[in-house]
């Protein structure tokens, strides 16, 4: 199920995959800007699952100062993180 991050990865496709994963695990839909942790639906243990999901699905390593809860707070913050970390990104 791992797929290499590629130029075809867009914010839209990343967010779609994230929303699908979240829906399968929480049985509810999530707006890109909704705070996953604010309502207590998502636990800190689930946050770690999200970290691993993001890494394995988009082929990135989230380490060091990037491995911070705020980067996983919303679908949008996760897609921004992936766009920043993916291989080939000029800022990486």
């Amino acid at each position, binding site marked *: 199920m791992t797929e290499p991050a590629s130029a075809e990865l867009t914010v839209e496709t990343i967010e779609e995959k994230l929303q699908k994963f979240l829906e399968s695990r929480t049985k509810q839909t999530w707006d890109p800007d909704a705070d996953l942790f604010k309502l207590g639906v998502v636990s800190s243990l689930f946050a770690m699952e999200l970290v691993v999901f993001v890494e394995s699905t988009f082929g990135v390593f989230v380490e060091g100062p990037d*491995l911070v809860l705020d980067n996983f707070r919303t679908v949008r913050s996760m897609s921004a993180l992936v766009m920043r970390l993916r291989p080939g990104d000029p800022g990486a």
Partner: protein
Amino acid sequence: MIPVLDELATLLTETAADAAEGWDLAGEIPVDVLRGLGAKGVLCAEVRPEFGGLGLSGLDNGRLAAHANSLCGSLRSVMTSQGMAAWTIQRFGTRALREEYLSRLTGGALAAVAFSEADAGSDLSAMTTEVRRDGDDMIVDGVKTWITAAAYADLVVVFGRHEGGGAVAVVPVTAPGVRVEPVPSPMGCRAAGHSTVVLDSVRVPPQNVLAVPGQSLTLLTSIALTYGRLSVAWGCVGILRACLAAAAGHARTREQFGTPLARHQLVARHLTDLYAAERIATQMCEHASRAWDGRSPGLVMDAILAKYVAAGNAARGAASAVQVLASAGARDGHVVARAYRDAKLMEIIEGSTEICQLTLAEHALAVAS
């Protein structure tokens, strides 16, 4: 086993097989033994080669932990701490911090990881240890209890509160204000160096603190503890293997009522239960470690499930082994006596059985359709 794992297992056997009983009775592993193993990378064998590590997979590192624990639960406990310290630094550390400290942890320096406090055991969110800025330095203040391997440690990886969230500080024990006080007479893993670590306004350079705005203390502890849970679960597999070997060996040779114990059906049932316990624990651990190596999101719950099942199995299995050995195993230092004491602690540390049950129940509620 691949050759490198074989070699490491042989090294552990040569180091600990004959010495473990004495270490348990003395309540101490000679620190030079630990430094020697550390310098060969065995204590945190999953560290990547780019940082001086052996680069074992999670699965092989788990198998190594099981082997270590089949010889000595205290040694395995030290490995768990060293591995968890390295994993925490690898995951959360900056590149510079990783390069400096991972090379030390694979070069003979020893590390402990400090979560628990007097009023923060299962509820780590209640911890009060504070990491705060003071001019150009960071200050660490708090008292950590039951810190495995701290009696041997050169570095303590301390989890604490920081600006409304969480932070991790890498604290050298030589820093002014650090006091390490060994727990007198621990019930199990007696030579694992369990200690209270007092941090009295300890000043550390800011680069030693992994502090990012918006970091969650529970995310920090969850990620660090997942390594620890896998390592403890594998350790329990080792307990079960040692118990099975001791019980089977005894039941084969010891005769009562004119027949070997193994031919007495009630004894045979103990052997069956031990065998089943070992097989089940092994397969749970293999499954979780494969999820870890394959970076599957399921690894978080798989690790908790493996730890829960393996610790319960080890506690029951060790009790069965003592029952089969009876007077032959009923003295301190004997492999089954050590297993019995150590296994009970495995139901307590790295998430007690009850905390695992609550977490797994929540998970079941979330995923069961």
